[in-house]
């Protein structure tokens, strides 16, 4: 099985994630879509690593995972606080910066 198929899958996942970020209003879902995009990128990195026969891509994937874990902690905390204060998790409600 050629590694290109992994790349196609990665692109597909990334697109689904991006569309989810743009379309969905629920912050949790948007958050999950962002995770999906990160993991799509991880998949691509690992696939490239395999294609080139070195470990650079895999190392980069580990970095992404660490960053994603930290991001989940902060992001979920923000979402929980937002929900508590506004009783809604809609990203469109949090538009206070608008004049």
């Amino acid at each position, binding site marked *: 099985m050629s590694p290109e198929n992994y790349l196609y899958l990665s692109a597909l996942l990334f697109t689904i994630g*991006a569309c989810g970020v743009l379309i969905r209003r629920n912050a949790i879902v948007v958050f999950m879509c962002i995770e999906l995009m990160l993991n799509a990128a991880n998949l691509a990195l690992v696939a490239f690593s395999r294609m080139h026969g070195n470990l650079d891509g895999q190392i980069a994937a580990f970095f992404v995972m660490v960053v994603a874990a930290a991001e989940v902690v902060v992001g979920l905390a923000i979402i929980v606080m937002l929900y508590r204060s506004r009783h809604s998790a809609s990203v*469109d409600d949090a538009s206070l910066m608008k004049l």
Partner: protein
Amino acid sequence: MESLIGGLVAAPLLGAAVLLTGGRRLDRSGHWLGTALAGLSFVFAAVLFFDMLGKDAEERTLTSHLFSWVPVEGFQADVAFQLDQLSMTFVLLVTSVGSLIHLYSVGYMAHDERRRRFFGYLNLFMGAMLLLVLADNYLLLYVGWEGVGLASFLLIGFWQHKPSAATAAKKAFIVNRVGDVGLAIAIFLMFTTFGSFAFSAVLDEQVAAGAGQATLTGIGLMLLLAACGKSAQVPLQSWLGDAMEGPTPVSALIHAATMVTAGVYLVVRSADIFNLTPDAQLVVTIVGAASLLFGAFVACAKDDIKKSLAGSTMSQIGYMMLAAGLGPIGYVFAIMHLVTHGFFKAGLFLGAGSVMHAMNDEVDMRRYGALRRHMPVTFVTFGLAYLAIIGFPGLSGFFSKDEIIYAAFAKGGTQGWILGGVTLLGAALTAYYMTRMMLLTFFGEKRWQPDAAGREPHPHEAPRVMTIPMIVLAVGSVGAGAYFSLGERFAHWLEPVTGLGHEEAPLSHGMVSLAATAVMLIGVAGAWAQYGRRPVPLVAPAGRWVTRAARRDLLQDDFNHAVLVRPGNYLTRGLVYVDHKLVDGVVNGTAAAFGGLSGRLRRVQNGFARSYAVSMFGGAAVLVAATLLMRAV
């Protein structure tokens, strides 16, 4: 002796400074301080005069250099005085009449709570006027010129709570400004032509002859414009009648005896320039003749005693101006008439003030009548001044006016006949309007009316402090002319400064005097027939169109309105419109355009996280696309 000249100017200026800054504590003594300083100035003048008489005619000029005002390379402006016979004549007139009028004002303004300020202004006027006539260069003269203009403005508008007085003051100031521009331009022209504006440098036949004819005529005409403004001559005459809104002593001092004659002084002082430019001289005579008739016509029709006297002043200054335009044959007589006029016109104004004082400030002559029994001193002094102004044989006006009429005939040719005719006509009109004033005020039936507050007038003679100046001026009106004319005393006195020309007129002196007396009698008879024999109606009859026009000052204000004010209004309105629409439009439009643009741009920042995400993804997509595109190329 030289240092006395400075004191002459300084005394009244000191008085003005003290009185105007001294505050209320001077309220009770200030008027005596002002009068004393004016008198001190007169004493200085008298000392200088007798000192001058002791010298030879050619060595009488005194100069006094005070300090360098603007010492710049190629531009020397000094504060320096020059006292020659011409200045001396003016100094004596200004200080003597000025002191008398200060004294008169003590009584006249007795009930005015701002009397201290009034005396401060009077002193300011005297100081400025002395500066004007004593300056040894045109720039310092200009300072005095503006100073008397300022004092005139302040004094015309002294009762500024009356809107008419405030307006009259502004009118006088603005009309005078037109003339002042002329003086400024004349000084500029002198400086560019001669490199100086000192009398000693400019007023020299040889130096002046070095300039082109056109330049000289230009300087002459600009000086004349200045003289017209200050002396209320056609075409800048419109302010004088309204200036009568000021207190009567002001009218006597400033608008009859002294300031309004500054124009004549300017022309006579600049004789060396005018002698070389016949064109400008001709214009001076024309202006004089026109003002002479204009003022006389207005004076004939006015019922307001002060406005009638104002017309008369304008007319008499027209005589002086006409004489000054005749050149060396006229200068001396212009100044002589100026001095005699200073006496009798100041006397007439003070008499008018005394009458107004007695009649609850009524100015309409139709409401006077029969005052001679109630105010004998005023009647006699006014009557003597009246006889002097109409040129009754033997009194001042007779001598000075006849000399001017003779000089006008001596101009020669058609011009001489025309000018002579105009002066004779003026003499007849003078006799007419003055007789009319006399009859309306002192003779006939009582036509007294209660004033606006319902008080009946109770005419009484003025207090002594007011009658003494009137008596002194009446003596001057009677005697000055004969004294000056005896052995051509005045002519020889002024000759070293102005020169003295002799021309033979087609008529002899005797014939001129006879003709002048004859037209004077015609004028008197005309007024007698109209106002002496018949009862005078309380309200002026409508009259013919000439009378109506003369009552409206020969439509001078309508003319100024139509020719100057209205176009000026339209111009400013147009400029305001352009300013609002065009200038403001561009500025506001630019601002509005940027405002609108930023409003549009602001919408992009809508606060929705998802729309920011779109722009991020879009930007990333564009970057990727661009990278791929570059690869492909």
